[in-house]
């Protein structure tokens, strides 16, 4: 049960219930849609980018608590950051949920995002936590869609069979 409470911490449950920046962004100049075909999670990330800085960000869609909370906290974390800063943060987040970065030992910029470290104990859920980040990254790089199928080494144990 300790691993479970590690996964479903109050902050995550709170962001799931009351996701921040959960709306369509009218001023967006970049958007991307992300889907996880295994579980049906689907979300759209909206960015307003000016001078290589994310001036505003929001998201819409449906998904599990982990993916919704992660998207919510992602929007808070990337707002106001430059493309390079966001790239570095995404890389750290991604390595943390894959278990490749020890967020307590190695210096990093993760801050409150460390709350998602528990996800690495649940391999089937890693993609839930990283979907919004991949989608944000796709939008930032002018791609209109991303799917967890195309993503690198995230481990997924979901069964696709009926």
């Amino acid at each position, binding site marked *: 049960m300790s691993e*479970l409470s590690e996964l*479903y911490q109050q902050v995550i449950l709170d962001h799931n219930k009351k996701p921040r920046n959960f709306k369509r962004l009218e001023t967006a100049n970049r958007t991307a849609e992300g889907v996880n075909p295994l579980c049906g*999670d689907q979300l759209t990330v909206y960015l307003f980018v000016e001078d290589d800085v994310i001036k505003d960000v929001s998201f819409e869609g449906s998904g*599990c608590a982990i993916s919704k909370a992660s998207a919510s906290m992602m929007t808070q974390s990337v707002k106001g950051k430059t493309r390079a800063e966001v790239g570095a943060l995404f890389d750290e987040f991604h390595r943390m949920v894959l278990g490749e970065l020890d967020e307590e030992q190695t210096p990093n910029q993760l801050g409150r995002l460390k709350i998602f470290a528990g996800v690495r104990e649940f391999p089937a859920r890693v993609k*839930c936590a990283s979907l919004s980040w991949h989608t944000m990254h796709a939008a930032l790089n002018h791609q209109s869609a991303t799917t967890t199928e195309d993503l690198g080494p995230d481990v997924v144990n979901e069964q696709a069979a*009926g």
Partner: protein
Amino acid sequence: MMIATEKTIQTDTQSTGNAWDVVRIRRDFPVLAQTVNSKPLVYLDNAASSQVPQVVIDRGSRYLREEHSNIHRGVHYLSQRATTAYEGAREKVRRFINAREARECIFVRGSTEGINLVMHGYGRKSVGVGDEIVISAMEHHANIVPWQMLCEEKGAKLRVIPMNDDGELLLDEYEALLNERTKIVGVMHVSNALGTINPIKEIVARAHKQGVPVLVDGAQGAPHLKVDVQDLDCDFYTISGHKMFAPTGSGVVYGKAELLERMQPFMGGGDMIRTVTFEQTTYAGLPNKFEAGTPAIASQIGLGAAIDYLNSLDRAAAHRYEQELLAYATAKLSAIEGVRIIGTAREKTGSLSFVIEDVHPHDVGTILDQEGIAIRAGHHCAQPTMKRFNVPATARASFAFYNTKEEVDRLVAAVQKVIEVFS
């Protein structure tokens, strides 16, 4: 602890007057006797893949130890033995589904391959521009996508039989869809996502009135219901071995001989030919015409052993027991506030889909897994069905005759825990 559990089960089954000895049955399935996350495993994901009894494991390993060789080719002793065992499994399948002839039972990897075989072999030859293919609103992607691919290739149209809010097909609307342009009807015997048992005999009769052949996706039918293809009068019937206690890679597509004979081969290669020259190839007869290359010999022999195992049980009692479990679980889960059952057809078997208010099924699945309970969370390869019921996904508990009421109680307690975590 295990002994206490067994005692309760026995008392329970005695009190309901059911002769089904689930304790003895569970001993046949070694995988069930393990702990997950320090709790006894509760396996409720049988609609995705069922577990394999020791006799099937033994039969497969005996083949690998003593009989392994390629079939239909060698003059030598082992090849003969392998061929005899493989063709013996085909005869077991024939009897199991009451086909007229063994050559009507084509071995494939499972229902998906079986449907694709019919799409290629029958559909591509019979369907043209403006023709129509009828499937149902509750189909698994395996019985949607191949027909969509065919429609795209041929300029044909996919028509869909609607269902009501309980998850039952609307037969009058179905009949209205049939016309002279309809070339084939594809419908599942039992819904993997909703548990609905479809009235196949009626569906077939109405299609045949218009001269339209019917393919039945039997992936969820064969594990739970007695299948008699002559009585159903369906033209094709598919089986996934791994959903009926056999290894993965085993399966069957049954087809009426006169249809199979007219069909073109699905795959070309060895074992499916009569003669080959660079100018022309003539094909082998049934069933070999559809079995190019070396098949999953050990798995199909395993399917034969699984059929032997099922025949050794009182299948009517097994069915009654499964129905009791389903009714018990439905009553218990419906009684929890915030839980909604998806799929409330009058005739159901196997699957029980549900959603919990404000909790995503994926989170339900993770928390249940921590309790040692295996269920499926997701769209069950039936995205149109999910859309029909306005849910992105469901949690699904699916039963086999080795599950117990105590396991249902554990499921119910775990669902209550989910609600606590998210309250």
